[in-house]
């Protein structure tokens, strides 16, 4: 079992110090008033010790307990996406002089960020977005730089919330690739650690951690198995879903869900894989400089399909259908992967409790 190491809770600070010494800003799930979301941390005490989250359709609540764990909650409200593909940012600027000459300059901002505690679903979300912004016909240099400067410490799940459905998609609440280190927390004790890259190995070498005992490693696997068992949602095999959705574009369920959907776009804003954005200019008042911004957009917005005087998806039914068929079908054609990781955020944050799994099952049955 020598490929498992053990990081006692008391040594989290050593790891954070080492990362900070290497120039990384450490980011981890953190408790803020009524939610747990990603934020900068500097020490172990900043982690959400003892906190739990309750998630159900249209429901999210954080509770505190006496448990001695930092990752007793299931999923932060936000994914890692905003660290790589920002909700809004200036992507270039252009200066205009008195003669009207335009000087364009790309804006590429990035920093070294170590994310301490990325759930396996969010790790897969990164892998999916890599295909959009980094492994595509054209890359986004900002995204590429941020990815190159990212250190990812995955945190395997030790329980699931009621909206989780990664297992139904054929995945597991265990990180299988795309991490520098992957950890599983054992309550009151520490983390069983697995190495996923040279960068990860270098960090563990610097910390000189001991190998995990067979018992600790077994306990970690049992915790993950518990998280798997905690998921109750089921879906047909993903290939079947992909085919059936596109074969049922006129299914009455689209009208049914459209009668409930508010087209608010919450689901797209919390989604780890949604990449739609719009661009606009923000000129200064002097008319000498403009910042060109890129900002998240949503296929639920009526403007999204506006073209040359026509709105192709004016009916909310067509917007919901675009979102669902894209995530669960056409994404495969575009990026050779599925577009959903089963994190369940779209279900948790839907104000009218629409559960995407129920909708898919209604159409594919």
């Amino acid at each position, binding site marked *: 079992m020598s490929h498992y190491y053990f990081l006692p809770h008391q040594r989290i600070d050593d790891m954070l110090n080492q990362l900070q010494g290497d120039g990384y800003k450490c980011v981890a799930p953190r408790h803020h008033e009524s939610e747990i979301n990603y934020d900068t941390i500097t020490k172990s005490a900043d982690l959400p010790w003892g906190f739990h989250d309750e998630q159900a359709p249209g429901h999210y609540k954080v509770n505190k307990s006496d448990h001695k764990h930092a990752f007793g909650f299931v999923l932060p409200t936000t994914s890692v996406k905003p660290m790589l593909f920002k909700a809004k940012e200036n992507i270039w600027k252009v200066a205009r002089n008195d003669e009207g*000459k335009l000087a364009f300059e790309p804006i590429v901002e990035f920093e070294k960020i170590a994310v301490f505690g990325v759930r396996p679903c969010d790790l897969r979300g990164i892998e999916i977005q890599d295909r959009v912004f980094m492994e595509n016909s*054209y890359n986004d240099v900002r995204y590429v730089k941020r990815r190159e400067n990212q250190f990812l410490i995955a945190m395997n799940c030790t329980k699931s919330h009621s909206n989780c459905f990664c297992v139904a998609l054929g995945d597991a609440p265990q990180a299988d690739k795309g991490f520098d280190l992957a950890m599983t927390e054992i309550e009151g004790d520490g983390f069983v650690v697995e190495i996923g890259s040279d960068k990860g190995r270098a960090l563990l070498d610097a910390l000189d951690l001991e190998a995990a005992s067979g018992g600790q490693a077994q306990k970690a696997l049992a915790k993950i198995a518990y998280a798997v068992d905690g998921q109750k949602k089921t879906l047909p095999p993903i290939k079947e879903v992909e085919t059936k959705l596109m074969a049922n574009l006129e299914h009455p369920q689209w009208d049914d869900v459209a009668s409930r959907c508010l087209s608010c776009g919450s689901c797209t804003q919390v989604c780890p894989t949604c990449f739609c954005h719009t661009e606009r200019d923000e000129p200064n008042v002097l008319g000498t400089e*403009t910042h060109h911004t890129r900002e998240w*957009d949503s296929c639920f917005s009526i403007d999204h399909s506006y073209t040359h005087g026509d709105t192709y*998806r004016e009916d909310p039914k067509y917007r919901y259908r*675009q979102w669902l068929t894209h995530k669960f079908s*056409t994404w495969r054609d*575009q990026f050779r992967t599925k577009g959903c990781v089963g994190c369940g955020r779209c279900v948790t944050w839907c104000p009218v409790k629409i559960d995407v799994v129920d909708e898919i099952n209604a159409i594919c049955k």
Partner: protein
Amino acid sequence: MLYTDDAYTPYEAEIVEFIKEHHDIFTIRLKFTDPELDSKYFFRPGQFNMIYLYGIGEVAISIVNDRNHQQGRFEHTIQVVGRITKGMMKLQTGDKVGIRGPFGTSWPMNEAKGKDVIIVTGGLGNAPLVAATEEVLKNRNQYGKLRVLHGIRSSDLLIYDDMYTRWNNSPETKVYMATSNADPVDNGKWTWGKGYVTNFIPELSVDYANSIVMTVGPEPMMIGVAKAFIAAGVKPENVYVSIERSMKCAIGHCGHCQLGSQFICKDGAVYPYPACEHLLRVKGL
């Protein structure tokens, strides 16, 4: 596309000529201000650029090509539809804009060799097919007969009249023009036909089994054109259309131009009809 570090940032280009075509349609002829970029810039018929207007934003517009065959210049014909194009109407010679491009697929100029070529356009759909038409005329002996069919709502909306006359006087080439408006407001000057472009099918005297059709217009028109020419004997795979959707990035990142599995910006805009027929058929896709 020309880019080094960042596919999102435009390059400066200068308006060398502004041509007013109609009350809300204009053509801008451009060159890059960086001579090196200007000499490298290359595009194929049917591709498009993103044109940036200072302080307003970018818009995707097809490249018309240079009607006077001047090297190192490219043209865009633009109709005022929204905020950005309205602002562009005020551009003048010497003004600077930003350009990113070229993007997208192009017309099947190689596949068309040895075939009769039928260009069918509606409204401002003629702009994206000027370059393809000129390409045939420049390499006249490599192609069969050339037929250019153009439909407009009324005769006063015609642009490029001189060009159509020149084309009509070119070897093995004939232009057919129709207005769907029964009474064109032309005081008798309208020398072209009336009705719809598909009405010309019986009189084109081409070999439909060995013809290629390239069409741009509103989607219902393109579908109608495709069906009519296929019925006349053109092989479905020899019918090409160009699809229009909103584009913010043109590089397959912004998601706006999706039509089913397609990103129109990079998988299109030019498609063989059989590759997109099923997508065009579904309302709201």
